[in-house]
């Protein structure tokens, strides 16, 4: 590292000139004289009678300062202090202006012009509701304390509006619930809410607080707040503006409600913002604006009015720096467009996996982590603590180092492959990589010895096929050639591979259709590539196995899975291809079409899956035929079951069904997860009849076996019949409610959920139409899909785990961290004539390489977050 010079001579010249910049000694002396005379004249250099401690003391001097009665020394001190302290400067400015403009009069102020009719009504309504809820609270709430907030500190004028009365508030005063709190021009206040959250209120802002159950809602009517939310075990703190709702647990964030819309800026942790149909998760440094006309400003700028901004900004910087630097500086290797190694493989290759060499990325991540730890005292403390514990930073770092140093010997890709042997069985896998530098053998030897323990296998190195031929069966075998290394877990496999490598070229992979398929993948750029020649793998199956293969699964061709990062976004696609048109089970998935059943699923769903299928009856029939062919007793058993139930499964249960299904977890997770099943039904009457028959048959059986029976009831409401089943054995999941709506059967664990689902569909508040979902759709030629699998477990499931975590696993288990860090993912499925494609933006479950590193890091470097109850951003903020 050269810290002496810049890479630009002009800069070197400039710093040199600055160092040598001289000023006339006489000029310095003159200036010094002026300064000294100013200081001396004021007597500031003499010992001060009463020492000034902090801002309060300075602010006490302001009246005297304005009155001109302050000693020159103090005057200078105060002027200097207000120069550097924004909050004291504001107080000074306000008090100075205060002489001219008396604010609390109200009439002439901004307040008078602002409230329009809807506003006035909203305010009136809010106050009424607030009052009402306050009265209810007084009656039923815990204790007799009616306040939901207390003023901790106020600068300037703060008042409360209750009913028709307006009253100025003083520091330490409690604020009754439902009262609106307003800050005047150039005032700012710190208010502590009942749950411990701290609200900093900007000038010209107004809010009131309501409470329902365990939730506390701060209604920000206008202006801005900066909230340091307290960690809570139950319930949430919500901030509600005209158009946005923000949900939090333990975090720092700012909300600005203006005339155009609302802006939410997150300083620390994570918040969930709901705006219309859209829900967004924001992490530290993220910002959301509800109106397009509100252009983004930096989070730092957005909270610049806060007195605690330095503290907040320091936090923000920590988080932002770590996330951004990782995202910016850790790159997956470039895509590979060809491979030298693939040409050297045997013609019988049936499995092929190629992954990029991550040594550079690991090195980058390590470098970033080390640097960040060194730069930040907080991180460095955590890091040191963890290293002492012996299971955190040290091991993580060591692991990364080992992985990296192994990879540093190897070329840009690592290949795992397996070929079929002459008897049609899959051989042991072989690992291949190009060698970049010498010393690999010594490295492996050293690692082997270091980790040997009581391992019985021996390590063998050979340099040629001839040597490989003499190898024993068991052990670890490396063929080290000048430019490549091959590893195999058995000698024979290594020998065979070595023979092909050294051979004249006959029997090699190029020329086979599978080779062409792999080349095709390389042409599109390879990141992680896994390909299997299913046709070859299944070719040697016995007739017996073939007969047992489910219908449609016998003509599989290739499975190709590709995951790659393009322009910073991961894309994953799996293609299962067939030798001809899909048949049997493989053909159940219909060609892409609209999935109407998904319209019952809201954007808040934690999980959703929906599929369009071919006719269920025909599909089931095919399956039955295959089962009967494989199991002679099947037909008899089926007849027996159908006889007992009194229905024909094919005709009465599958027959009425239509061509699409959806399942979802959508709604509160407690006490019972809000599951939801939607199925298209062509003949609801017949299906209902069959279901009733099945229930009756089940109850008859239950009675004779002395088991509790299923209660079945129905209810008419709004022109619909709601059916309710209670199955005592399944408690607490014992209730199933269902209803037929416009050709769909809709089932859920409660009537409320059914109504809500119907409402979602009626109002268009649906997952599929939400912006978040639309943004996740892959860019391709399809307008519809044959199926989707969507998860947003971080919002759906994490709260459940959190609740459970308190009593069992403890907060912050790796699983929880993992889930909290998951980004929403969407897999789309397309059925085409001879193939099925599954595609997703984002790596598997949204965990790209960079995300994984960040997850591990966040978990390690911020162990305090669970103690402090802050849900820090685990995944990237992209």
């Amino acid at each position, binding site marked *: 590292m050269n*810290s002496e010079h810049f890479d630009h001579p002009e800069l070197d*010249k400039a710093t040199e000139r*600055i160092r040598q910049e001289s000023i006339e000694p006489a000029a310095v002396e003159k200036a010094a004289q002026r300064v000294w005379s100013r200081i001396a004249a004021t007597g500031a*250099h003499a010992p*001060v009678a009463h020492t000034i401690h902090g801002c309060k003391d300075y602010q006490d001097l302001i009246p005297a300062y304005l009155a001109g009665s302050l000693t020159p020394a103090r005057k200078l001190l105060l002027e200097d202090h207000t120069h550097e302290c924004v909050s004291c400067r504001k107080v000074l400015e306000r008090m100075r202006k205060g002489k001219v403009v008396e604010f609390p009069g109200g009439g002439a102020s901004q307040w008078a012009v602002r409230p329009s009719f809807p506003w006035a009504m909203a305010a009136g309504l809010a106050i009424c509701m607030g009052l009402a809820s306050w009265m209810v609270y007084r009656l039923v709430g815990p204790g007799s304390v009616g306040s939901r907030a207390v003023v901790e500190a106020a600068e300037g004028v703060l008042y409360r509006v209750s009913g028709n009365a307006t009253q100025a508030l003083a520091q330490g005063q409690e604020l009754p619930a439902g009262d609106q709190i307003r800050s005047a021009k150039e005032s700012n206040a710190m208010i502590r809410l009942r749950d411990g959250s701290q609200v900093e209120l900007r000038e010209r802002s107004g809010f009131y607080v309501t409470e329902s159950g365990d939730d506390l809602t701060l209604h920000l009517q206008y202006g801005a707040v900066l909230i340091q939310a307290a960690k809570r075990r139950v319930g949430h703190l919500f901030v509600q503006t005209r158009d946005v709702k923000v949900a939090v647990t333990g975090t720092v964030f700012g909300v600005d409600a203006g005339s155009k819309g609302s802006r939410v800026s997150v300083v620390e942790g994570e918040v969930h913002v709901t705006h219309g149909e859209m829900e967004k998760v924001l992490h530290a440094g993220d910002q959301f604006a509800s109106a397009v006309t509100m252009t983004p400003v930096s989070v730092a700028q957005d909270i610049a009015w806060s007195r605690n901004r330095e503290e907040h900004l320091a936090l923000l910087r920590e988080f932002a720096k770590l996330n951004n630097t990782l995202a910016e500086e850790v790159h997956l290797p470039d895509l590979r467009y060809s491979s030298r190694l693939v040409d050297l493989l045997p013609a019988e290759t049936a499995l092929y996996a190629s992954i990029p060499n991550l040594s550079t990325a690991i090195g980058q991540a390590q470098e970033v982590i080390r640097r960040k730890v*060194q*730069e930040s005292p907080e991180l460095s403390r955590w890091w040191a603590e963890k290293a002492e514990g012996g299971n955190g930073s040290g091991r993580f770092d060591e692991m990364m180092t080992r992985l990296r140093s192994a990879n540093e010997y190897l070329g840009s890709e690592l290949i795992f492959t397996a070929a079929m042997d002459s008897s049609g069985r899959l051989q042991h896998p072989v690992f291949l990589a190009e060698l970049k530098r010498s010393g690999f053998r010594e490295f492996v030897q050293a690692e082997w010895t270091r980790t040997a323990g009581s391992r019985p296998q021996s390590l063998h190195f050979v340099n040629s096929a001839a040597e490989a031929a003499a190898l024993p069966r068991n052990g670890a075998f490396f063929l080290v050639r000048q430019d490549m290394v091959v590893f195999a877990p058995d000698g024979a496999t290594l020998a065979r591979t070595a023979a092909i490598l050294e051979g004249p070229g006959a029997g090699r992979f190029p020329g086979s259709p599978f080779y062409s398929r792999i080349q095709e993948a390389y042409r599109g750029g390879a990141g992680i590539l896994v390909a299997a020649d299913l046709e070859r793998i299944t070719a040697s199956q016995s007739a017996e196995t073939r007969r047992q293969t489910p219908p449609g699964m016998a003509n599989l061709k290739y499975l190709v899975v590709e995951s790659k990062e393009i322009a910073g976004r991961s894309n994953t696609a799996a293609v299962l291809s067939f030798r001809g048109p899909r048949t049997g089970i493989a053909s159940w998935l219909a060609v892409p079409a609209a999935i109407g059943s998904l319209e019952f699923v809201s954007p808040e769903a934690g999980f959703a899956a929906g599929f369009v299928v071919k006719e269920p009856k025909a599909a089931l029939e095919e399956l039955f035929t295959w089962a009967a062919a494989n199991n002679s007793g099947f037909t008899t058993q089926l007849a027996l079951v159908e006889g007992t139930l009194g229905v024909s499964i094919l005709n009465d249960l599958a027959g009425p069904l239509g061509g699409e299904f959806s399942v979802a977890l959508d709604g509160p997770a407690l006490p019972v997860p809000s599951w939801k099943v939607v199925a298209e039904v062509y003949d609801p009457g017949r299906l209902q009849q069959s279901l009733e028959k099945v229930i009756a048959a089940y109850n008859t059986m239950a009675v004779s076996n002395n088991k509790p029976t299923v209660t079945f009831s129905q209810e008419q409401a709004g022109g619909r019949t709601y059916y309710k089943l209670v199955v005592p054995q399944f408690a607490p999941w014992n209730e199933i409610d269902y209803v037929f709506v416009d050709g769909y059967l809709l089932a859920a664990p409660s009537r409320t959920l059914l109504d809500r689902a119907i409402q979602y569909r009626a109002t268009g508040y649906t997952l599929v139409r939400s912006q978040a979902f639309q943004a996740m759709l892959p860019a391709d030629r399809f307008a519809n899909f044959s199926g989707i699998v969507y998860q947003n477990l971080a919002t759906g499931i994490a709260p459940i785990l959190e609740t459970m975590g308190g009593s069992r696993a403890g907060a912050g288990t790796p699983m929880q961290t993992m889930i909290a860090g998951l980004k929403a993912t969407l897999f789309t499925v397309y059925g085409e004539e001879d193939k099925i494609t599954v595609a997703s933006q984002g790596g598997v479950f949204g965990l790209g390489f960079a995300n994984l590193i960040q997850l591990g890091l966040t978990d390690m470097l911020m162990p305090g977050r669970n103690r402090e109850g802050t849900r820090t951003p685990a995944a990237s903020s992209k």
Partner: protein
Amino acid sequence: MATAIMEQVQQISSEEMEKIFREHHGLVFRAAYRVTGNASDAEDVLQTVFLRLWRRDPESLVVERLPGYLHRAAVNAALDVVQSRQERGKMALDDLAPKLLADKMPTPEREHASTEIRDWLRRAVGRLSPQAAEIFALRFFEGLDNPEIAESVGTTTASVAVTLSRSRERIQKEFSSFWTKKAGRQS
């Protein structure tokens, strides 16, 4: 030790204070001049630094050696000036223009170009984080070496080196675009 100096400062008389001022004002003024690039700002810095010293703000006096402390205080107060000048600059360039122009002496073309680069560099340093800016100024404007800086700001030499290297990288990067634009203007 730090407390000892504070006590010492607290107990000194106004004559002694004057002595301290006479002994060290040159150091403070020159450092401030190098960082801000103009005499009137340097004069403000001089006043600020000594006012703070007299005020016995305990934080400002947690130091072992007075010259070292004053040097550092001068650089920081000067950086504050540079930084606040930029903030003002963002809001109202017009207000600022006459002052900036007045600061510049009419000079031949080449001299002017070099002044422009120095001004640019000072502003760029002002855009660094406070600590990075301080370290950068101590190293490149004040000519301290890394161990001296580390001791002065209370960190490790390695951390100084890393901070410097990052600041240098950032400034180089910004400079390249400034330089390109400048070249574009001139051609």
